[in-house]
C-alpha cells in the first residue's frame, strides 16, 4: 500500500514538474509551481520526512509563488503606449 502511495506521489511530481517546465507564462508557472510544491510535500510525507514536508509546504507552496507573482506584477504593471491591452490583462490578474 505504502509503495503504491510513494509511486503515485512520484508520478504526480514528475507530471507537475514537466508541466511547470512547459508553461511559458510566469504567472501561470507560479500556480503550477505551487501545485508542484504540494506534490513534493505529499511525497516527503509518504516517505516519512514530515519536517521536510512542512518546509516544502511553507516555502514551495506559499512563499515562492508569491514572490514570483509579485515580481511579475512589478514587471508587467508598467504601462507603455503600445501595450495597453497587456496592462489591462495584468490588472485583471491582480484583482483576484
Amino acid at each position, binding site marked *: 500500500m505504502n509503495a503504491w502511495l510513494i509511486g503515485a506521489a512520484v508520478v504526480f511530481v514528475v507530471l507537475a514538474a514537466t508541466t511547470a517546465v512547459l508553461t511559458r507564462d510566469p504567472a501561470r508557472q507560479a500556480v503550477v509551481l505551487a501545485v508542484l510544491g504540494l506534490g513534493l510535500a505529499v511525497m516527503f510525507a509518504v516517505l516519512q520526512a514530515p*519536517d521536510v514536508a*512542512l*518546509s516544502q509546504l511553507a*516555502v514551495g507552496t506559499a*512563499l515562492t509563488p*508569491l514572490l514570483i507573482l509579485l515580481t511579475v*506584477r512589478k514587471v508587467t504593471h508598467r504601462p507603455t503606449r503600445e501595450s495597453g491591452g497587456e496592462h489591462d490583462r495584468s490588472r485583471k490578474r491582480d484583482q483576484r
Partner: protein
Amino acid sequence: MSTRARLVMFLLAAAVVAAFFSAACAHLPPFATPDHPYGERAVAAALERRTANVVSAVNFDIRAFDTLGEESILFGTVLGATLLLRRARDERHRRPVAERVMPTTRLFATLLLPVTLAVGVYTVAHGQLSPGGGFQGGVVLATALHLAYVAADYRALQKVRPLVVLDVADSLAAASYTLVGLAGLITGGAFLQNVLPLGTFNTITSGGTVPVLNATVGVEVACGLICLLAHFLDQAVEFTGPDQYEKTGDR
C-alpha cells in the same frame, strides 16, 4: 556556438554524467529497508541528549554548525534583497489607497489570521518534540501576518508590521545563534556544544541548547521573511517607475 554543436556537447556530457550516476547508484543501500546505519546512530545520539524530535537533534545539536551556515544564507539573502529592492532615485513613492474587499474574503482571513499565528508559534515552540521547528514555524508566522493584507489592504498590513523592529530582531536573532555557540565554546570547550541542562525527555524544555537555537532560528526566519516580502510588496504596491506617473491613480 551553433545549436548542433551545443546539442552534441550536451549529449556527451549527459552520457558521462549518466554513466557515473548509474555506477554510484548501484552501490546505494536498497530503497526502504528497515535498518539504516546513520539513522540508528542519530536516534541514539538524540535520545542521549533527551531530544524527542531526532531531526531537530541533528539540526541544532549534532550538526548545529551546518544550521549556522543555512541561517547565515537566509540572513544574507534578506540583506541582498533589501539592498537591491531599495527605492531607486527615479522611483516615486505612492501612498497605498484603501481597497474594497469581498466580505467573505475578509471573514476568511480575519478568522484564519489568529489560527495561523497560533500554529506558527506552536510549530516553533514544539520543534524539539514534534515535526517542525524554527524554520518551518518561522515561515508559517511570516506568511500568517500577510493575511492582514488579504483581509484588508496594504495600510492594515503596514500597521501590524513594524519593519524597523523586525529588522533589528532579525539581526539580533541571527547573532544570538553564534552567541549560543560561543557560550558552548567558553563553558564546554567546543563551539555550539550542548552545555545547558538537558531536562526531562519529551517536555518543552528538554534538549539543552536545542530549544534555544530553535527559537533563535524561528525569530530570524519569521522576521527575515517578513522583511523580504515587505521589500517585494513595496516594489509591487508602493513604488512607481518614471514612466507611469500619470497612470498611478487609476486602481
